[in-house]
């Protein structure tokens, strides 16, 4: 059975595509670049699909571990293998990553068709898929960290894809540096794992925890919180979410793939992957839940007033990631992963549709200048409608099922769970409102500006849109019960959730809230188009606070960035430049001059002194060759020992 299942093929196919297009792409014809760029994720997806089919036929196949026969790191007690592991969790994640990844590659062919960096773009995109699959398949924390850092690199490269633009280059740097803070937490967590478990492999950690059922809290809490810090960096949660809105500087398909569907969900995946640690620390779980709920609400309120279509979607991504963390925080990992999957579908769809809108508007991203697009972009309008209904949580679209599962799981967790549920519900209301706001502003009403000619949307862009729209409709139909039953071997068995009146009522409440959001948006943006502006004028302080995103960027700038810059400048200028570099130059110069002053006496210009040195050298050589030194030394040592002996 294993002969047909090569895990290493999954990451290596995109890597080959990266190498090919990265090294040769500039000199090759476009169709060849396109072929290779599409083939890479397709091969990976085929391998994943094959694995899925095989595991369906033979459930005993999972979990499947593939370990490189030679140890990767083997120093004293530190032993780390390059191991890949395929279980239900990584399989679901891989299906999303490679499947949505492939669709977005196809979309990019149309979107990037006349870009100068065509080959560069696709090589980066393939590189991202390589690292993402490594991250997902990782069998231990260090391999995961390799993928973790790698997707960060790919994200940096793609955010700064238009590197001639200063804002894009800055956004890339911001994403990289903010992520570094989270990675610091991940690293400390790994060191603590090594110190306390002696292994980084997820299986090994799980086995050791299973042996000590009483082991709770303490160092486990610290480890879980360190890992959580890493997750908040990658998944754009409070307090490290600030990089994601700026990441929208990258090409729109990149926003769809990396900054909505896959990479930013890596934090959720990591928490689910290390759930054995979180399960042993109620405090850490509580922190996860609170961080998730707070982020969900916080980002949703900012999303209410943003005018850039991609920024609205970016804040909505942060908010939805908060939902996933909320689910993980109430130990409903399968609900979190379920929402991750459906979110990947509808958020990729919304971003790609936004890309189609921007493409059609000739690069315009301001919602205030759009309007009435449904006539010009009918397909985009239709799929966006599906996406909006899905994210707002309307039955029977995908978002309804996963959001409902999370809210239901939170509601069952006692009084604090009820509070989380309430926050989630308010967030759902806000989500529904700002998504319908976007929908009304962009597609309905009258065109508010005439931006040149409208591009037709090519087929390569429409195809993925339609497929993702179908997935956004049907993606949730599998239902949380079957989904969590499938994931149970990987995320731990949960007691069967009794679906009954309560779930039905909660589902109806969520639906009602979504409808309310739609209704408010309808009032404000369709029936009385001036109402929104009046509202903003009525509460200028509140509006300003939201429009400026709670001044968080300014706050970080004043408290962290500027002091750090001043300190760095001081260290660089005075310590490094003057003291170290200046001192070193002075020291080296002094040594050279001193040795020169001594050695120059040798070069006296006196011919006879040269000749004398020559003769002395020859005599010394002769002495060395002729005298049997070994014998002489031996006799000397005999004398020495003779003396010592007495």
């Amino acid at each position, binding site marked *: 059975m294993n002969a047909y299942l090569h895990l290493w093929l999954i990451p290596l196919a995109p890597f080959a595509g990266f190498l090919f297009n990265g090294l040769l792409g500039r000199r090759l014809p476009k169709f060849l670049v396109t072929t290779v760029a599409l083939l890479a994720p397709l091969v990976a997806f085929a391998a994943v699909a094959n694995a899925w089919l095989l595991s369906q036929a033979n459930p005993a196949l999972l979990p499947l571990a593939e370990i490189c026969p030679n140890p990767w790191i083997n120093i004293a007690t530190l032993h780390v293998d390059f191991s890949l592991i395929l279980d239900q969790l990584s399989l679901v994640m891989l299906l999303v990553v490679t499947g949505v990844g492939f669709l977005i590659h196809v979309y990019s062919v149309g979107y990037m068709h006349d870009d100068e960096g065509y080959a560069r773009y696709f090589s980066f995109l393939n590189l991202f898929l390589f690292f993402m699959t490594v991250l997902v398949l990782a069998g231990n924390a260090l391999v995961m960290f390799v993928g973790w850092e790698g997707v960060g690199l790919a994200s940096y490269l793609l955010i700064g894809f238009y590197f001639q633009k200063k804002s894009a280059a800055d956004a890339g740097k911001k994403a990289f540096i903010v992520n570094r803070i989270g990675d610091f937490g991940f690293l400390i967590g790994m060191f603590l794992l090594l110190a306390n478990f002696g292994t980084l492999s997820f299986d090994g950690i799980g086995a050791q925890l299973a042996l000590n059922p009483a082991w709770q809290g303490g160092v486990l809490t610290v480890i879980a919180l360190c890992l959580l810090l890493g997750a908040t960096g990658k998944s754009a949660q409070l307090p490290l979410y600030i990089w994601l809105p700026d990441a929208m500087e990258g090409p729109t398909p990149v926003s769809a793939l990396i900054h909505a569907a896959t990479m930013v969900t890596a934090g959720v995946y990591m928490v689910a992957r290390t759930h054995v640690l979180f399960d042993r620390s109620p405090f850490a779980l509580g922190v996860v839940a609170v961080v998730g709920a707070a982020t969900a609400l916080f980002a949703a309120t900012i999303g209410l007033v943003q005018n850039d279509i991609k920024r609205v979607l970016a804040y909505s991504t942060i908010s939805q990631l908060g939902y996933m963390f909320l689910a993980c925080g109430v130990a409903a990992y399968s609900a979190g992963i379920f929402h991750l999957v459906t979110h990947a579908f509808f958020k990729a769809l919304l971003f790609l549709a936004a890309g189609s809108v921007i493409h059609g508007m000739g690069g315009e991203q301001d919602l205030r200048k759009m309007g009435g697009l449904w006539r010009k972009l009918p397909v985009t309008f239709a799929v966006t409608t599906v996406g909006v209904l899905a994210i707002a949580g309307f039955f029977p679209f995908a978002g309804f099922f996963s959001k409902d599962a999370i809210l239901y799981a939170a509601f069952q967790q006692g009084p604090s769970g009820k509070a989380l549920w309430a926050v989630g519900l308010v967030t759902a209301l806000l989500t529904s409102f700002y998504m319908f706001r976007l929908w009304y502003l962009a597609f309905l009403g009258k065109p508010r500006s005439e931006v040149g000619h409208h591009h037709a949307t090519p087929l390569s862009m429409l195809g993925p849109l339609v497929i993702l729209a179908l997935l956004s409709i049907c993606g949730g139909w599998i239902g949380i019960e079957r989904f969590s039953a499938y994931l149970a071997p990987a995320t731990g068995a949960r007691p069967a959730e009794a679906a009954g009146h309560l779930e039905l009522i909660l589902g109806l409440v969520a639906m009602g809230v979504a409808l309310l959001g739609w209704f408010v948006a309808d009032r404000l943006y369709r029936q009385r188009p001036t109402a929104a502006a009046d509202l903003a004028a009525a509460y200028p302080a509140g509006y300003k606070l939201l429009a400026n995103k709670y001044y968080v960027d300014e706050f970080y700038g004043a408290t962290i960035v500027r002091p750090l810059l001043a300190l760095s400048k001081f260290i660089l200028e005075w310590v490094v430049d003057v003291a170290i570099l200046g001192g070193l130059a002075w020291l080296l110069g002094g040594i050279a001059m001193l040795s020169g002053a001594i050695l120059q006496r040798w070069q006296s210009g006196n011919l*006879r002194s040269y000749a004398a040195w020559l003769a002395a050298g020859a005599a010394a050589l002769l002495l060395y060759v002729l005298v049997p030194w070994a014998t002489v030394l031996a006799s000397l040592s005999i004398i020495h020992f003779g003396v010592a002996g007495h």
Partner: protein
Amino acid sequence: MNPTTTQLLQQEVPLSWYLLLSAVLFALGVVGFLIKRNLITVFMSIELMLNAVNLSFVTFAHQWHEVKGQIFVFFVMMVAAAEAAVGLAIIIAVFRARATLAVDRIDLMKL
């Protein structure tokens, strides 16, 4: 002539005598090279050293019935001749420029 003298003449001169002579000549050359101030004398000392070496070459060639040593002597003589030509030309040029042949005073290459 008494028989001892005859015997002595019929005997070969021992190897060590030649080598000793060669070493003495070489040492004289070295000493002359080091202590003489006149450039021409220094030059002649070099020639003396070369010839001392030639002597030991020939000695060994005779001793081991090998022709290589003698061939080497030809090479050395050839190089010595060339060197004499070039060296004397340099000496004349130096003398014209500096009006002296004292080795100690020819130190323009010094830093």
